[in-house]
C-alpha cells in the first residue's frame, strides 16, 4: 500500500508545490532582472552623473577662463589703458625707425645694462603697470594665490608699455599670440609652465581696440592654472565631503592628450593618449562623453567618466577633457547596496514563496491525502483502525473532511454493528451447531437407551416428551401419549396425589407400574427427578421394564418357598423321627444307638441351618427384612452371647472371656439379628481356633459401640482378607471330614451390621490371631 502512495504522490501537493516553485522562480527571475536592470540603470545614472559632473566642471573651467578673458576684454576698454596706448602709439608713430627703436630696446631688454634696467623700471613702475600690479595683487590677496601671474600690455607696434614683471622680451609683435590676438582679437595658449611664476598657466592675450575700433595694442595675461586645478580638485573634494568617497581622481587633459592636471600623482604633460585610446577607443569626437568601467592602474575596478570641454558662449572650447576616476566600489556603492538588498529581498521572497508554497500546499493537500488514506483504509475493510481526520482548513477540503468525518463515524458505527452482528451470528451458528450436536447426542442416547424416559410438565402433569423405549413399553402411539396426563400411563396416582409434587416423596429406584392402554400393567423400576428447563419445572421419569425381573423374583420366591418347604418337610420328619427314638418313646435304646442317632440329629440341625441361611439371603437380597428394633443395653446382649457359648468353648479347651467396656451404652437394634452376628463370629472363632483363647470385647467409642471377637486361631491370609465377607467363601477349610460351614454366615452378618448402620471388618495375622470387629450406632443419651 505504501508504495502506491509514494508513486502516486498527492497531485495537489505536487501541483501546488510546482506552482509555488514556479512563482518563486518567477520571483527570482524578476528579481534578478530587476537587480540587473537596476544595476544597469543605476550604473548608467551614476555614470551619467559623473559625466555631467565632469562636463559641469569643464564648463566651470571654461567659464572661469572665459570670465578671466572677459575681464581682460573689459580691461581692454579701460580709459587709462586706452590713453596710455594712444600715447605710446603716438610716440612710436613719431619715431623715424620704429623697428630700429624696438630692436634696440629689445636688445637692451635682454642685456643687463643700465639702460635696460631703466627701461624695465620705467615699464614696471609706470602707473599702468601699477594698475596691472594692483590687479594682480588684488587677486592674490583675495584668493591667496595668483590668478594672474603676469599681465603686460604691448602697443600696436608690439612693444611692451606696461607689465607686472619683466617679460622675456620687449618686442612681442613677432610672438604668435600677439599676431593671433591682433588678427582674431583673442588668443589663448595651451597650458605651459611659466618659469618666472613657477606655475602652470595659460597665456591669454586680448587685442585692444580704440573706441573707433582701431587696433591699439594687446594685453596679455598669464592665467594661473591653479584656479582651474582648484575647480578640478573641487570634484574630489565634493565627493569626499558629501559622499565620503576617497577614491576619486580627476584628470584634466588637453586637446593633445597631454595630462594637464590630476588630483592624484601625475606627471605634468604626460601623454596619456595611449591610455585614453585603449580605454575609450576613438574619442576624439568632441561630443564624446561616456563612462567606462575597467581596471585602474592601482588594480581596483574603476568607473572612468569622460567628458569634453564644450564651447562656452563665444569662447571656443579648448578641447580639454576631464576624466573622473572612481573606484566602482565607491561610486557604485548605491548600486551595490541596491543589488544587495534586491537580491536579499528576492532570496527572501523566494524562500517565503517556497515555504508558503510548501505549507499551503501541504495544508491543502494533507487533508485531501488524509481523506484519501482514510477512504483507502475503509476500502480495504480496515475500518477499525481509521482515525478521525482533524479538520484543519476552513476551505472546501475542510468541509469535505467534515462531511467525511460524519459519514465515517456513521459508517464506523454501522460497521461495528455489522461486525458485532456478524460475530453474533457466527457465535449463534456455533451455538446452534453445538446445540444440534448436543440434541443429536441426546436423541441418540434417548433413542438407544433401554430405559424409558418421559418428560412431564410438573405443573400440568402433562406428558411433554417420550423416548422410543417409553413409547414401546407403554404400547401406545407417541401422539396418543404426548400431551396426556402422566397418571394415564406412567403411574396410577390419583390427581392431586402425585407422590413427587403433592406428597413430597422421593421416587428413587422404586417399583411401579406402567399403565398400558390395552390393559395389563407393566412392572417397572423407576426414578423420578425434578429439573428446571428455562423457568419451568419438569419431572423426568426414567424406568426400566422389570417384568422379567419380577417374574424371576416370583419364580425365585416360589422356588425358595417350594424348595424350603420340600426340604423342610422331610427334614422335619427325620428330625422328629430321630428325636422320638432318642427320647426312647417307642422304646429303649442302647448307648451306641443313642450316639449314632445323636450324630444324625446334629446333622439335621446343620441342614436346618443351611436351609434357613438360604432363606435369609433371599430375604436380605429382596430387602424384605424388617428389623424389629428395640433399645438394648450392649452389656446385656454381650452377656447373653457369652452365656450361649461359654460351655461350648471351654469344653474345647479354650479360654473364653468377655470384656465389657461399653459403659452402659444403649443401642437401638434388632437383638435377634445382632445375636445372630455374634453367633456367626464366635462360631467361626470356635471353628478355627485350636488352642489359646477367644475374647469378646464390647467398647464404647463415642457415637458407636465397637464389638470385637478375638481369637488365637489359624488366621486368614492377607490375600484372602478382602474376600472374607463374600458369599460362599470359606477359608482354612481342610478337605475331608471336619469343620464345615455354609460360607454364608459372614455375608449375612455384614448385611445385618450394615442395615443397622454400622460397619464390619476383619484384622488377621495368618497363623496367629484374628479379630472381627463391627460397630453399632449408639442411642444418643
Amino acid at each position, binding site marked *: 500500500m505504501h508504495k502506491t502512495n509514494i508513486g502516486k504522490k498527492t497531485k495537489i501537493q505536487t501541483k501546488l508545490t510546482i506552482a509555488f516553485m514556479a512563482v518563486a522562480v518567477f520571483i527570482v527571475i524578476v528579481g534578478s532582472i530587476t537587480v540587473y536592470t537596476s544595476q544597469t540603470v543605476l550604473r548608467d545614472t551614476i555614470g551619467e552623473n559623473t559625466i555631467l559632473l565632469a562636463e559641469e566642471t569643464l564648463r566651470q573651467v571654461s567659464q572661469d577662463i572665459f570670465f578671466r578673458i572677459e575681464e581682460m576684454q573689459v580691461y581692454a576698454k579701460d580709459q587709462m589703458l586706452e590713453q596710455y596706448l594712444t600715447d605710446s602709439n603716438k610716440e612710436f608713430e613719431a619715431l623715424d625707425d620704429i623697428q630700429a627703436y624696438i630692436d634696440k630696446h629689445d636688445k637692451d631688454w635682454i642685456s643687463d645694462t643700465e639702460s635696460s634696467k631703466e627701461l624695465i623700471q620705467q615699464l614696471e613702475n609706470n602707473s599702468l603697470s601699477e594698475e596691472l600690479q594692483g590687479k594682480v595683487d588684488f587677486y592674490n590677496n583675495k584668493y591667496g594665490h595668483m590668478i594672474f601671474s603676469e599681465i603686460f600690455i604691448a602697443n600696436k607696434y608690439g612693444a611692451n608699455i606696461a607689465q607686472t614683471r619683466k617679460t622675456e622680451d620687449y618686442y612681442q609683435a613677432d610672438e604668435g599670440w600677439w599676431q593671433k590676438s591682433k588678427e582674431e582679437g583673442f588668443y589663448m595658449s595651451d597650458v605651459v609652465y611659466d618659469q618666472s611664476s613657477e606655475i602652470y598657466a595659460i597665456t591669454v592675450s586680448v587685442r585692444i581696440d580704440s573706441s573707433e575700433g582701431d587696433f591699439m595694442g594687446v594685453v596679455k595675461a598669464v592665467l594661473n592654472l591653479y584656479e582651474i586645478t582648484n575647480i578640478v580638485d573641487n570634484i574630489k573634494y565634493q565627493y569626499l565631503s558629501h559622499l565620503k568617497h576617497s577614491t576619486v581622481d580627476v584628470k584634466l587633459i588637453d586637446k593633445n592628450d597631454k595630462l594637464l592636471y590630476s588630483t592624484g600623482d601625475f606627471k605634468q604633460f604626460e601623454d596619456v593618449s595611449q591610455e585614453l585610446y585603449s580605454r575609450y577607443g576613438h574619442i576624439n569626437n568632441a561630443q564624446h562623453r561616456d563612462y567606462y568601467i575597467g581596471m585602474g592602474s592601482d588594480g581596483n575596478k574603476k568607473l572612468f567618466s569622460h567628458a569634453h570641454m564644450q564651447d562656452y558662449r563665444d569662447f571656443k572650447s579648448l578641447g580639454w577633457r576631464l576624466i573622473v576616476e572612481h573606484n566602482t566600489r565607491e561610486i557604485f556603492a548605491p548600486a551595490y547596496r541596491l543589488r544587495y538588498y534586491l537580491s536579499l529581498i528576492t532570496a527572501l521572497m523566494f524562500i517565503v514563496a517556497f515555504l508558503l508554497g510548501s505549507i499551503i500546499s501541504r495544508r491543502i493537500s494533507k487533508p485531501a491525502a488524509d481523506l484519501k488514506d482514510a477512504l483507502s483504509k475503509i476500502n480495504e475493510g480496515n475500518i477499525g483502525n481509521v482515525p478521525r481526520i482533524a479538520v484543519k482548513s476552513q476551505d472546501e477540503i475542510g468541509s469535505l473532511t467534515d462531511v467525511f468525518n460524519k459519514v465515517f463515524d456513521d459508517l464506523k458505527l454501522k460497521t461495528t454493528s455489522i461486525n458485532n452482528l456478524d460475530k453474533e451470528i457466527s457465535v449463534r451458528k456455533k451455538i446452534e451447531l453445538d446445540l444440534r450436536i448436543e440434541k443429536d447426542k441426546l436423541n441418540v442416547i434417548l433413542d438407544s437407551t433401554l430405559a424409558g424416559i418421559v418428560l412431564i410438565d410438573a405443573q400440568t402433569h402433562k406428558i411433554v416428551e417420550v423416548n422410543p423405549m417409553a413409547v414401546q413399553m407403554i404400547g401406545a402411539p407417541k401422539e396418543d401419549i404426548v400431551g396426556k396426563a402422566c397418571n394415564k400411563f406412567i403411574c396410577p396416582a390419583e390427581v392431586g396425589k402425585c407422590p413427587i409434587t403433592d406428597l413430597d416423596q422421593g421416587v428413587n429406584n422404586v417399583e411401579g407400574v406402567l399403565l398400558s392402554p390395552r390393559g395389563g400393567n407393566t412392572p417397572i423400576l423407576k426414578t423420578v427427578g425434578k429439573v428446571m428447563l428455562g423457568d419451568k419445572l419438569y419431572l423426568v421419569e426414567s424406568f426400566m421394564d422389570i417384568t422379567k425381573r419380577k417374574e424371576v423374583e416370583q419364580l425365585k420366591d416360589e422356588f425358595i418357598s417350594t424348595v424350603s418347604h420340600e426340604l423342610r*418337610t422331610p*427334614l422335619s*420328619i*427325620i428330625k422328629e423321627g430321630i428325636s422320638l427314638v432318642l*427320647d426312647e418313646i417307642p422304646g429303649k435304646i442302647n448307648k451306641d444307638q443313642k450316639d449314632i442317632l445323636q450324630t444324625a440329629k446334629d446333622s439335621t440341625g446343620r441342614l436346618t441351618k443351611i*436351609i434357613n441361611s438360604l432363606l435369609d439371603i433371599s430375604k436380605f437380597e429382596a430387602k424384605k427384612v424388617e428389623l424389629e428394633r428395640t433399645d438394648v443395653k450392649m452389656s446385656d446382649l454381650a452377656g447373653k452371647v457369652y452365656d450361649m457359648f461359654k460351655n461350648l468353648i471351654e469344653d474345647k479347651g479354650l479360654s473364653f472371656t468377655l470384656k465389657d467396656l461399653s459403659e452402659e451404652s444403649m443401642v437401638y437394634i434388632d437383638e435377634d439379628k445382632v445375636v445372630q452376628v455374634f453367633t456367626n463370629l464366635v462360631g467361626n472363632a470356635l471353628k478355627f481356633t485350636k488352642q489359646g483363647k477367644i475374647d469378646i470385647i464390647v467398647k464404647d467409642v463415642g457415637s458407636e459401640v465397637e464389638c470385637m471377637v478375638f481369637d488365637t486361631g489359624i488366621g486368614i491370609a492377607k490375600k484372602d482378607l478382602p474376600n472374607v465377607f463374600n458369599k460362599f467363601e470359606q477359608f482354612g477349610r481342610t478337605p475331608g471330614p471336619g469343620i464345615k460351614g455354609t460360607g454364608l454366615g459372614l455375608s449375612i452378618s455384614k448385611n445385618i451390621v450394615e442395615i443397622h448402620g454400622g460397619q464390619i471388618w476383619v484384622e488377621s495375622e495368618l497363623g496367629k490371631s484374628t479379630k472381627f470387629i463391627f460397630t453399632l450406632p449408639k442411642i444418643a443419651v
Partner: protein
Amino acid sequence: MKKILIIEDEPEQIKLISMRLKANGYDVTSTEVAREGLRIAKEEKPDLILLDILLPDINGLEVAENLKSDIITKEIPIIAFTALGTPDIEEQCKEAGISDFLRKPYESQDLIDKIKKQLEA
C-alpha cells in the same frame, strides 16, 4: 386327658407327632384333609389344634379363620406349623387368630412346651 387335633397333609409327620404327643399324655386326632379337620373340630371340639399352613385343599390360614369365626371352635387355641419360609407367615398367622407358631423342622421339646403353654392358658 386333653385332646389335640392335628391337621397336616404329611401322614408320616402325623405319625411321628402323634407318637410324641401320646408319649406326653395327650389324646390325638388327625386328618390330612382340612375340610375334614374343620368338621372334626366342630364336632369333637378338641382342646388344641395343630395346623399345618400349607394344605392341599384349603390354605391353613383360611382354616384358622374359619375356626376362629365359628362360635363352636372360636376358643380352641391353634398352633400352626409350616415348612414355608416366607417371612411374613408369622404375621399372617397372628392375623388369622393363630396363637403360636412353629417352623419345621422344629425342636420336639419346643412343640411340647408350646402345647403346654396354650393348654394352661
